[in-house]
């Protein structure tokens, strides 16, 4: 009795307090779960602009990547309804879309210009041709190298190098006594860390994770070649302890000038060329991720995108927000206030057509990298899955985390590559059988 009264009083109070702010009646408050990277934090600073345009209030829940993934996954699977918009990746969007958990984004307004979204991005965020999440920011991976060291080694980095060339260049740039390592790559366990890198690399060696019948292919010749190539190169020319290095570890090694080459996310380009953080800012060059002449390169594709959970009451307001946040106008607003190097990259073709943006040194290589990855045909041989450095099935994270643990153990010399791949094949087979494939 008293509780109901208290509740009523509270409701009445909040209506009184908030009421005048929403004079136009249709205004609502939407709750957005998002990741704590620089671009997303920046967007929160512009929330007032959105509120001014539409009258809707926005509440942000900002989380670290792993925590975000757990929170939104729990919320969507249990129908929790905590959020009106969720920031999800290319891994989640097709899976959730096929489960019917996301509102289809098929009725966006004409001025939003949905066809301007890069096809690779739209493809990775769709299921059966329907877009389920709008990309806010996209990335691929590419080679970042030290122009001064390349010159000293008497080599010239082509725009599209092969793995052979990368290995030879790494050999030429390595000087272990001076703590100068030819190449830094991710060896850390985790499906989003070293696991993502080796999968993308395997694509260029003609390997695939599953065949058309979903049978794991980790015991294939191509996988053995890939992992052996990686391990031999890193043992000889990589930094010590590379088996525990992920994105952040390699970033700091590269910024300190200890790496000749680094193949990683295209967003890292703005970090390594920023003189405030990087000791090598003025001598960094960019090239496409290497290939083996088989038609597929070893770069991945990722996007952070905004999706609307199917159960929300505020789908219309949420759509308005998505149209605002992933629009051309938003990009222009950020560019005007903070410079072109700071706009969210990788989502729209119009950004790369903009002459102002073409002056940014890594813009063209980022676009070329993104365009050379195709989530719908990631491998040389045909595969049944969508995704470049992952397969968009619910079991992937579990399988690939364990597989990458076995691979990391092989990098650390605790087992041979063949043993690691044998265990990986057993893990994948067991999990896929349990999942009913």
């Amino acid at each position, binding site marked *: 009795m008293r509780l109901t009264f208290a509740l009523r009083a509270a409701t009445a109070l909040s209506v009184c307090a908030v009421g005048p702010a929403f004079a136009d009646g249709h205004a609502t408050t939407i709750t957005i779960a998002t990741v704590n990277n620089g671009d997303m934090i920046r967007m929160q600073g512009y929330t007032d602009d959105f509120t001014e345009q539409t009258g809707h209030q926005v509440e942000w829940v900002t989380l670290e990547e792993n925590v975000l993934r*757990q929170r939104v996954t729990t919320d969507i699977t249990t129908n929790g309804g905590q959020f009106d918009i969720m920031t999800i990746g290319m891994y989640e969007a097709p899976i959730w879309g096929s*489960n019917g958990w996301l509102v289809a984004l098929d009725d966006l307004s004409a001025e939003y210009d949905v066809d301007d979204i890069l096809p690779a991005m739209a493809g990775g965020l769709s299921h059966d041709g329907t877009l389920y999440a709008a990309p806010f920011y996209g990335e691929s991976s590419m080679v970042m190298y030290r122009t001064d060291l390349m010159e000293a080694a008497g080599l010239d980095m082509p725009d599209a190098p092969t793995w052979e060339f990368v290995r030879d260049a790494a050999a030429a740039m390595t000087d272990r006594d001076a703590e100068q390592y030819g190449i830094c790559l991710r060896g850390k366990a985790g499906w989003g860390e070293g696991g993502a890198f080796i999968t993308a690399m395997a694509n260029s060696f003609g390997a695939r994770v599953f065949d058309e019948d979903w049978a794991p292919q980790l015991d294939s010749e191509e996988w053995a070649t890939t992992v052996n190539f990686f391990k031999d190169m890193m043992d000889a020319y990589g930094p010590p*302890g590379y088996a*525990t290095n992920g994105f952040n570890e390699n970033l700091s090694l590269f910024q300190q000038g200890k790496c000749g080459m680094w193949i990683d996310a295209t967003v890292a380009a703005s970090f390594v060329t920023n003189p405030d953080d990087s000791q090598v800012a003025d001598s960094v060059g960019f090239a496409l991720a290497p290939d083996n002449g088989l038609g597929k390169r070893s770069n991945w594709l990722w996007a952070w995108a905004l999706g609307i959970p199917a159960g929300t009451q505020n789908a219309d307001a949420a759509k308005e927000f998505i149209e605002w946040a992933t629009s051309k106008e938003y990009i222009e607003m950020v560019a005007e206030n903070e410079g072109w190097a700071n706009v969210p990259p990788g989502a729209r073709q119009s950004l790369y057509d903009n002459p102002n943006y073409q002056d940014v040194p890594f813009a063209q290589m980022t676009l070329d990298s993104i365009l050379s990855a195709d989530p719908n045909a990631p491998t040389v041989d045909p595969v049944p899955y969508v995704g470049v450095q992952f397969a968009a099935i619910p079991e992937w*994270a*579990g399988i690939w*985390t364990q597989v990458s643990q076995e691979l990391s153990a092989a990098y*650390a*010399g605790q087992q041979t590559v063949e043993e690691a791949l044998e265990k990986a094949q057993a893990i994948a087979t067991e999990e896929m059988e349990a999942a009913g494939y």
Partner: protein
Amino acid sequence: MATKSSTAAARLMMAPAVTLLLGWMLVPLTMTLYFSFADYRPLRATFEPWIGFDNYARFTSSGSFWDAVTATLIMVGATLAITVILGILLALLLDKPIFGQGVVRILVIAPFFVMPTVSALVWKNMMMDPVNGVLSHVFRFLGLAPHDFLSQTPLLSIILIVSWQWLPFATLILLTAIQSLDGEQLEAAEMDGAPPLKRFWFIILPHLARAITIVILIQTIFLLGIFAEIFVTTQGSFGTRTLTYLVFQRVLESQNVGLGSAGGIIAVILANVIAIFLMRAVGKNLDA
């Protein structure tokens, strides 16, 4: 003098607290038990409430299960040994009157207040890193090749980190125990000509027995649940996947709640078995 009605009143007044505590404990446990017999995979939108013991069979028959049990036992056992032995030595040292005793004691206890995630990050990036870590600089200063702790000796590295965290706890308990030892006994032994080692072995150590068993018991409970140190440093690779970590992987990474819950129940049973043995050992010591 409790009358019938006062006992009843007392029970009535205690009832809310007891119910709350029971609920607090039983609801999660019951749900875990319930899920452990279900095929519950949220990302597949699968929920089948009864599949018998399939989850248990799968969890225990998978190759990673026994590795995880072994890793857990090694980690807990080694950490216990290190903290108890070093804890006794440190407690003996801290018991001596020295200049600035209060400050030294606070400094020794300090690691216990550092959050596990933070200390794991500090150890990983600032101490054990093979390129930039303090230890690698020391190795190079001595003219040796830097040791890559986390990938070459992963289990030992994590044991070191955890021991560093729990050593203050052991020291603290053991120090208070030593301080409660009657100094006259030691003096008497000294006058009778007992050398220091014998005094330690026959007087101090028996006096510490109770405190040691308590340290072991409490630490075991917490050490069985080590998570942050593994998550931050090796992500469970290189054979550092404990039972707790395996359960985490099954539930959150594989998104298989049923399988993970079965693992959780198995972990509870194992922990209870260990606890029963420890309690017996403690009981014996308390009687003696």
